[in-house]
């Protein structure tokens, strides 16, 4: 099972590189925020897998909880700011 989890971790790390294109070359600022949100939500699975690989899942899951809260609040705050501010990046 450890080799399987290592393979899935490497696969998700490669998958996380794909939305960086949308983060760098998005036409509007909303596309950049969308790419940042997708990368942040994939980081949750990656952190849990790293916790299982290190054998310290009890410690890493608390980090995952805090990270999911921070990601959600960050995207909501950016959406509120962009709703008030405008389209210009």
């Amino acid at each position, binding site marked *: *099972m450890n080799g*399987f989890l290592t393979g*899935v971790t490497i*696969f*998700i790390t490669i*998958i*996380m590189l*794909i*939305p960086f*294109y*949308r983060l760098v070359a998005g036409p*509007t600022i*909303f*596309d950049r*925020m*969308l*790419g940042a*949100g*997708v990368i942040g*939500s*994939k980081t*949750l*699975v990656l952190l*849990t*897998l790293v916790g*299982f690989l290190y054998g310290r*899942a*009890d410690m890493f*899951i*608390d980090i*995952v*909880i805090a990270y*999911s*809260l921070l990601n*959600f609040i960050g*995207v*909501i705050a*950016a*959406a*509120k700011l*962009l*709703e008030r501010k*405008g*389209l210009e990046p």
Partner: protein
Amino acid sequence: MNILAALLILGGAFFLTVGSLGVIRLPDFYSRSHAMGKSDTLGLFLSLLGLAVHNGMRVDSLKILLVAVFVALANPVASHALARAAFRKRLAPWMKRNRP
């Protein structure tokens, strides 16, 4: 090795791949927010459920299920907030008549 956990994790990885490709491939911001709000959420939910099944009956599994339920509630809300901000700022949607 648990077959159910492996199947759930592989299904989650498939839906995460579909979400990433949708974010990079779809033509418009609103359709890209579909890729974030639906397939990425399903991939996260299936992956975290598979990891909870792999962990077994412990307190940590309950915490992983808590994170999975919270993400399944929060990720569509974030996607909807971004799409609403874009709509109120009058970002033009992709249509057939203004296709480049």
